[in-house]
C-alpha cells in the first residue's frame, strides 16, 4: 500500500526527520488560509499516487496566499495520469543549495534492508541507477543490529556531503530507519533531502510503501489507504478476499492461484495477438465456493471492456464438480449474457465436465486443456461465438 507524500512526511516527522511545516487542504479556501498562516511564498502540491506530478502541472509555486488559492482552483480536480486530485499539500517554499536522495528498500536477494543515498536528488532513483549507477551508495543493514551510525557516515561520505552536515544526516538516516521499521514499510524514501540556503537539512518530498501483509498490526496505517487511487473493482475484490488487478484487454479471467492466473493471462495474449488480451488478473484463492465465484464474476463484469470470460481452475484439494456447481449457481445469481469458457482440471474433472455440458447453456463452453480454453475465449472475444 502506497502512502501519499503528506502522509509519508508526517510519519517521517514523527520519527525526527525535519519536514516543512505545511498542511493538507481539500478546497481553495483552505489553501488560502494555510498559505496566509504560513506567510511568504508557498508550494501547492497535488496529492496523487503517481510519479511525474510536477511535469503534469500538479506542483506550483505561489508568491502570495491569493495566488495559492487561484492555483489550487486549477490543481484541485485536475486529472493526473487518470487520477483526480482531491487533496493538495501547502508547504512553505524553501530555498536550497543542494538536493540529495536518501531511501531504504528491501533487498530481496540479500534478504536484508538496504539504505541508499545519492548526490543526485530530485530525480527518480531508477533513473539515476540507469544513467549514473556509481552515484548511488548502498549500505546493507543487519536486521538484528539495525543501522549503525558508521554506515550512515559511509553514505554521507560516499555522496560527498560536506562534513558540517554529517551529524544531522546520521540523525535523519536513523530516524528514517526507525520509521521504516515501525511502519513495516517495504520502501521509505526522502527525495529530495535538501541543504537549505541557511544550512539545514530538510525532507522536501517523501514516499512510503507499507507491506500489505503487515497491515494487520497497523490499523492506523491501514486506514490511510486511498481507495480513490484504485479502481472500484479492486476495492470490492479486497473486501471479498479476492486478488484482482484490472488490465486493458477483453477477456475476463477467473483462476485459482497467482502463478496460474498470470499464465492464463499470458495465454489469452499468446492466442489473441495484438488486439485481444486479458482484462484482468484474478486469483480466487483456494476453495472457490459458489458465493466467492459469484463475487468474482460480478467484479469481472463491472469492467465494460470484457467480451468473454475464461475460468481456469486446477482442483487440487478443491473438487472440480463442486466448482462446476458453484459456477452454475453463481451464473444464475449474477445473470451473465457474455460467452463463458470453463476449464477445470485435476480432482473430479470428469464430473465437472458432465455438469457443465449437461447444463446446456448456449453461451457456456467446456474446454479440456488450457490451450483450447484460451483459443475459445479469444474467438468469443472477437465475436465469433
Amino acid at each position: 500500500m502506497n502512502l501519499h507524500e503528506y502522509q509519508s512526511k508526517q510519519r517521517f516527522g514523527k520519527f525526527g526527520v525535519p519536514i516543512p511545516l505545511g498542511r493538507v487542504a481539500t478546497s481553495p479556501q483552505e489553501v488560502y488560509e494555510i498559505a496566509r498562516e504560513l506567510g511568504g511564498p508557498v508550494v501547492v502540491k497535488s496529492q496523487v499516487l503517481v510519479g511525474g506530478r510536477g511535469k503534469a502541472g500538479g506542483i506550483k509555486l505561489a508568491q502570495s496566499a491569493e495566488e495559492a488559492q487561484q492555483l489550487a482552483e486549477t490543481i484541485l480536480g485536475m486529472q493526473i495520469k487518470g487520477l483526480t486530485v482531491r487533496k493538495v499539500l501547502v508547504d512553505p517554499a524553501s530555498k536550497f543549495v543542494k538536493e540529495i536522495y536518501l531511501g531504504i528498500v528491501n533487498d530481496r536477494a540479500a534478504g536484508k534492508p538496504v539504505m541508499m543515498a545519492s548526490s543526485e536528488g530530485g530525480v527518480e532513483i531508477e533513473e539515476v541507477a540507469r544513467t549514473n549507477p556509481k552515484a548511488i551508495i548502498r549500505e546493507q543493514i543487519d536486521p538484528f543490529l539495525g543501522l549503525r551510525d558508521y554506515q550512515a557516515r559511509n553514505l554521507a561520505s560516499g555522496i560527498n556531503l560536506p562534513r558540517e552536515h554529517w551529524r544531522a544526516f546520521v540523525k535523519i538516516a536513523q530516524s528514517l530507519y526507525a520509521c521504516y521499521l515501525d511502519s513495516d514499510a517495504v520502501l521509505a524514501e526522502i527525495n529530495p533531502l535538501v541543504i537549505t540556503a541557511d544550512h539545514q537539512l530538510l525532507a522536501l518530498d517523501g514516499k512510503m510503501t507499507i507491506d500489505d501483509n503487515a497491515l494487520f498490526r497497523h490499523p492506523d496505517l491501514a486506514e490511510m489507504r486511498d481507495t480513490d487511487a484504485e479502481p472500484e473493482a479492486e476495492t470490492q475484490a479486497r473486501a471479498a478476499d479476492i486478488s484482482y488487478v484490472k488490465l486493458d484487454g477483453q477477456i475476463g479471467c477467473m483462476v485459482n492461484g497467482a502463478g496460474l492466473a498470470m499464465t492464463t493471462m499470458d495465454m489469452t495474449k499468446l492466442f489473441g495477438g495484438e488486439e485481444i488480451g486479458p482484462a484482468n488478473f484474478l486469483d480466487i484463492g483456494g476453495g472457490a465456493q459458489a458465493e466467492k465465484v459469484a463475487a468474482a464474476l460480478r467484479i469481472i463484469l463491472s469492467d465494460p471492456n470484457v467480451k468473454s470470460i475464461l475460468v481456469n481452475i486446477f482442483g487440487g484439494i478443491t473438487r472440480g464438480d463442486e466448482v462446476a456447481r458453484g459456477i452454475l449457481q453463481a451464473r444464475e445469481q449474477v445473470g451473465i449474457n457474455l460467452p463463458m469458457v470453463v476449464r477445470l482440471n485435476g480432482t473430479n474433472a470428469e464430473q465437472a465436465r458432465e455438469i457443465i455440458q449437461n447444463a446446456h447453456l448456449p453461451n457456456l463452453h467446456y474446454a479440456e486443456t488450457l490451450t483450447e480454453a484460451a483459443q475459445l475465449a479469444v474467438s468469443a472475444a472477437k465475436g465469433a461465438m
Partner: protein
Amino acid sequence: MAILADKNTRLIVQGITGREGSFHAEKMIEYGTNVVGGVTPGKGGEWVHGKPVFDTVKGAVDATDANATIIYVNPQFAADALYEAIDAGIPLIVCITEGIPVADMMKVYSYLRRSKSRLVGPNCPGLLTPGQAKIGIMPGYIATPGSVGVVSKSGTLTYEVVFALTQRGLGQSTCVGIGGDPIIGTNFVDVLEMFEQDPTTDKVVLIGEIGGRAEIDAAEYIKTHMTKPVAGFIAGATAPPGKRMGHAGAIVEGGEGTAAEKIDALRKAGVRIAANPEEIPDLLG
C-alpha cells in the same frame, strides 16, 4: 533417492490441531508420508489422526527423533514457529503459511543463515517425492515416480505442469515449490544444485514468474554448472509494471524482474522455454 525428502523422512506438523494443519496432516499420512507427530502449544498429550501432539517442537523432536517439520501456522505467529523449529535443530523446515510480514521474514532469514536448518517457503505448496513422501499441500495423485526434477515458485501452476508430465508418462524425482514471497529460505539455485547432484534426476523443469532476480541467478548457475537439460516457463509476460500479481513477490519494480528479461537470460543459458506450459513435456523430449 530424490532430494530433500524420501521414505526415511520423519515429519512433524506444527499447527496439527488447526483446520489447515489437521486436514493436510491426514492427506500426508494417507499418501504414506512418515508423520511421527505434531505440535500445538497447549494441546500436548492429545492425539490427531493417530499421531501424538506435543506442546513444543523440542519436546516433539526429543520423543520422535523427527528430522523435518511442516508449518501451518497463521502469519501472525509463523515467525515464532520458525524460530522454534530452527532452535530445535530440525534440518528441514517447510513453511506453507501465506502472508508473513517481510520484516519478520528478513529476521528469520538472517537467523536461519546462522543455523544448520534449511527452510523451504514460506507461501509455498511444499514438496513431493512421488511414492515416498509428501510434505505440503500438493495433491498426491498428480505425480508419479520418475526422473524429472521440478522446481517452481507457484502452486496450482506447478500442479498443472506436474499433472501434464504425469499424463505424458514423464515421472518426477521430486517436485519442490519454493514459494512466491520476496524472502524465501530456498531459492532456485539451491534446488538446481541438489537436482544436478541427485543420481535419480535426469532432467529438470523450472517454473518462474515476474519479480526479483532469482530466475536470472538460476540462468547463471545453469550456464556455468548444470549438465542436465532444463526446460521451463515464466509466468507474467502480460503483467503491468508496479502492480502486485497476487504473490507478494510477483511485482515488476523499477523496470526489473520482467518476464522478457528472465526468458532471455534462461534461453541464453540453454534452457528450453515454453510459451505455453502445456508444451513443457514436449521440450523434455
